[in-house]
């Protein structure tokens, strides 16, 4: 097969207005043609940040991104001062969470992650018990 038989298709995502700084948040999901599609949605309730929710069957992953560590902000039940936070729910139960440059993260008013100084911290729920990872 020659190269000309396999064209490259390019998606160009550009900002409407010129600026010196910008942030993008992109989710990529690869599936077979018959595979179940995830539902990917932007979270528009973020003030000065970006967020995306990815749902598939009863699983949900939320990724939140701010420009810098911030005052505790609650979005979709996730309250954190971290710069980046990821929360995974299964059947409505939080099964995993992680934060970058944060000192606290709570989901649905349950404190899950904490640190004395801004740090990268994660945790998982195993056998029904929440455990922070070292």
């Amino acid at each position, binding site marked *: 097969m020659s190269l000309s038989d396999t064209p490259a298709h*390019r*998606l160009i*995502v550009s900002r409407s207005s*010129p600026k010196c700084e910008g942030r*993008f948040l992109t989710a*990529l999901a*690869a*599936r077979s043609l018959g595979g179940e599609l995830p539902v*990917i949605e932007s979270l528009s309730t973020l003030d000065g940040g970006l967020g995306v929710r990815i749902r598939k069957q009863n699983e949900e992953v939320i990724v939140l991104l701010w420009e810098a560590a911030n005052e505790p902000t609650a979005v979709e039940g996730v309250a954190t001062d971290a710069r980046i936070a990821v929360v995974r729910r299964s059947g409505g139960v939080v099964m995993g969470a992680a934060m970058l440059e944060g000192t606290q993260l709570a989901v649905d008013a349950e404190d899950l992650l904490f640190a004395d100084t801004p740090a990268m911290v994660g945790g998982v729920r195993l056998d029904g018990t929440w455990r922070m990872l070292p």
Partner: protein
Amino acid sequence: MTLAREHTSPPVPMTDEQKFFFDLRGRPDVFVLCDEVTAKEPEPVELNFTCLGSLSRCGDSQFQSTTATNRLFIHSQSTDELDWSTRTFHDVPVGYACPPSHRLTL
């Protein structure tokens, strides 16, 4: 004779963001990319995704690239409003205004 290491640049250390998402390995079905861009002068910064299959829009902020057997969904957002466009490259002529795409074929 030269040693291999003389031709090899030191590895670029991962950023905190890369370490963060690398440590979330084990959930590889969706990849999330965080891009922070800084320009010397104001400019309409853009991201380029070069795909194997034709592109079509499939919802708000979402495109899909479809090949004979697979689909790739691309959902991208920014703190500013975004414009979207697509192009298809075949043989890229010399001096073409847009950067060519380079593909590794295995």
